């Protein structure tokens, strides 16, 4: 029978996993939208506006799902993890507070103007609103990742009367793992949004959309992905080195290093076994893990044996890490091939199908990465300060079971509705909306329909 601790962990994982899917798209998608709108303002080319108009609807839907699933998160701490706030509330509270104050109101208010205000404010003010929403979503990531990183690598605090107090807020915010985790996550968002945009645009083209806008969006997505993917590999490596320094037990589990080893191989595949504390069917490249992590082929990697009883479960980290890296490499390869194919007059249909299949590839990589880093913190909730077991609520398991069941049902329905609606919106844009197969004149009508000159603004 599952106890309150396990149910609460599953519920938190469910809520945060469902939630993170949407911000991962919207953080970067908003910058892409700002780019579209800015290009329209600068060039007057209406194709940019059409691309903006399609994607802003997708953005609104995705953002709404992020907002509502995020409200759930703000209640989770109190309902399921009261020990967390009692112990580290002095740190977590202000960081969450700053997120609400500086990010949530900003993005929510200007989102209203961005979505519905184009007829009511000048175009530049509208573009500015899109910029503010993009800044808001990024600020939100800044604060929440500051808190998450602090839980991984706490700094700038002291413990008085059993409760954590802040001594230096700059050290709290810019704790050792924060810069790496923030950049890693923002790039992950960029890649996720890039493949999302490319995938949905490829779907439109496959369904017979002759218009320019999806091709433009496809190009934007592919180029963005091709640039960000190698950057992400680089930053990911730095993040790994940082983790190696501050949370070596996490790295040991990720690499499946059971005994301290010099010249450790990079395992491409293995099945870690917690019972025998060894790997089965290991296939690896000799010395590569040591080379990557210590920059010496004979460098030492501390094994799990030095952390016995105080290290995370190995299997989820070992496999999660390989899923993330594998997906990242696949994304990089596809983005580069795509950029090469863009030079042709028509992108081949087979490649478009590949892109459709990759629409949500960023979700897979992001979730896998988060599972590695969050499970990798166990058994601690806040490294060295508070264990997960000590923070859990005394509420009865039946209550947690009930709320978890309710959330699961709602999330399954919402995910189905979300994907279904994305498909519908893409199909609708193929058949309805404006028809423009030729490159429109810069000062021409927006829709090739009467009464829609640019001068009139806006439809």
């Amino acid at each position, binding site marked *: 029978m599952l106890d309150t601790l396990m149910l609460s962990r599953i519920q938190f994982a469910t809520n945060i996993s469902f939630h993170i899917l949407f911000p991962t798209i919207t953080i970067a998608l908003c910058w892409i939208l700002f780019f579209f709108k800015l290009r329209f303002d600068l060039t007057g080319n209406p194709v940019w506006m059409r691309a903006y*108009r399609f994607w802003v609807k997708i953005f609104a839907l995705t953002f709404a799902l992020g907002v509502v699933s995020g409200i759930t998160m703000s209640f989770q701490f109190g309902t399921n993890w009261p020990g967390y706030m009692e112990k580290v509330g002095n740190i977590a509270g202000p960081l969450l507070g700053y997120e609400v104050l500086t990010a949530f*109101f900003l993005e929510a208010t200007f989102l209203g103007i961005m979505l519905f205000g184009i007829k009511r404010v000048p175009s530049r003010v509208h573009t500015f609103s899109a910029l503010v929403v993009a800044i808001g979503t990024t600020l939100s990531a800044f604060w929440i990742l500051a808190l998450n990183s602090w839980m991984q690598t706490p700094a700038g605090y002291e413990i008085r009367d059993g409760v954590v107090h802040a001594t230096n807020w700059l050290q709290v915010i810019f704790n050792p793992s924060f810069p790496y985790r923030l950049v890693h996550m923002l790039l992950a968002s960029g890649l996720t949004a890039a493949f999302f945009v490319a995938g949905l645009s490829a779907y439109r083209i496959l369904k017979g959309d002759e218009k320019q806008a999806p091709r433009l969006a496809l190009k934007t997505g592919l180029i963005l992905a091709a640039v960000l993917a190698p950057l992400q590999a680089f930053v990911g490596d730095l993040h790994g080195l940082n983790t190696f320094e501050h949370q070596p037990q996490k790295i040991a589990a990720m690499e499946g290093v059971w005994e301290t080893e010099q010249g450790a191989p990079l395992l491409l595949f293995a099945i870690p076994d917690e019972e025998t504390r060894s790997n089965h069917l290991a296939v690896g490249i000799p010395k590569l893990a040591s080379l990557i992590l210590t920059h010496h082929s004979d460098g030492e990697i501390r094994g799990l044996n030095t952390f016995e009883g105080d290290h995370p479960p190995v299997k989820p980290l070992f496999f999660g890490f390989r899923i993330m890296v594998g997906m990242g490499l696949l994304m990089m390869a596809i983005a580069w091939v795509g950029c090469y194919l863009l030079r042709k007059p028509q992108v081949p249909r087979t490649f478009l199908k590949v892109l459709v299949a990759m629409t949500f590839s960023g979700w897979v990589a992001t979730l896998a990465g988060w599972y590695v880093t969050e499970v990798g913190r166990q058994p601690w909730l806040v490294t060295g300060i508070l264990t997960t077991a000590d923070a859990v609520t005394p509420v009865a398991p039946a209550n947690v079971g009930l709320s978890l069941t309710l959330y699961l049902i709602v999330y399954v329905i919402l995910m189905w509705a979300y994907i279904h609606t994305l498909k519908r919106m893409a199909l609708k844009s193929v058949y309805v909306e404006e028809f423009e197969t030729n490159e429109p004149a810069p000062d021409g009508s927006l829709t090739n329909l009467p009464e829609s000159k640019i001068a009139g603004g806006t439809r």
Partner: protein
Amino acid sequence: MNSLSAISSSGDWLPVVFIGLMGLAVLAYAILDGYDLGVGILLPMGEQDEWQRDTMIASIGPFWDANETWLVLAIGLLLIAFPAAHSLILMHLYIPVAIMLIGLIMRGVAFDFRAKAAVDHKLAWDRTFKIGSLVTTLTQGYMLGQYVMGFDQSLPALLFCGISALGVTAAYSYIGAAWLVLKTESSLQTRAVRWTRAAGRASLVGVVAVCLINPLVNPGVFDRWFTFPLVMFVLLIPTLCFLGFVANDILLRRLPKEADRHCGVPFAIVVGIFTLCFSGLGFSFFPDIVPGQLSIWEAASARESLQFILVGAVVVVPMILMYTAFSYRVFRGKATDLHYH
């Protein structure tokens, strides 16, 4: 007054500032999300009502997201400033909170899905919007009742929570309907005037019920309110509140007027009533953050944390108020069809 002496004796004014900020956030939430929840509750579901539903939802479209953020701020401030109270309250209200969140999720997404789903699904999402709004207001009212009753689960207490659930729902419908009087025209506005009157009367019954029961079951509250000579002064609150209800009812009988004069007055009056009721509630319990169990000083978090967030709040809250005002200015006037661009 003992609460004032408590302030001076403890010498710690930060928790007082934060309870003030939190009060502001809760009141802003009740008014702002109140009207959009109310609009959701009032959504007419007939087949011929589709254009009215579209207009009603258009009237809250640019605002609902920011409105809901006040809830996040309120719960965030509770968490930041009074972590002990946060844990205590949310543990007691575990299941109603979960249900309320599901209500909020359903209405939040229905809002977007209805505009984008296939035509044959639109009605289903409208129903989801209405039901989600109703679930949210009922659970909020229930939780308010539980909070006032000190989380008592006995039958009379639950009965009170039931009254409170209906009362809060009526109050949200009241402010939602008044919002529609302000933001809509023609037959929908006429309908909204009718809704406002009905919801106003229902709210009055709810407020009177809560006002009578609360002091009777909470001796502390009774003493607070009915201590001479303070009683002469504080009784202004219920008196003004009652006058507000009556004046609004009389005004609504004459609406809509020519050239749409006074269409914003009912909303302004309801905002006044909300503010008065809220001050009454605050007056009943201050300085307790959990009535009879925990005062704001006992629950407050560390000084350096409160100072750190206060600096931010002093800078940022005025900015929030300013751009919120800007947004309401941009979308002033009657609601028109929503177009995403």
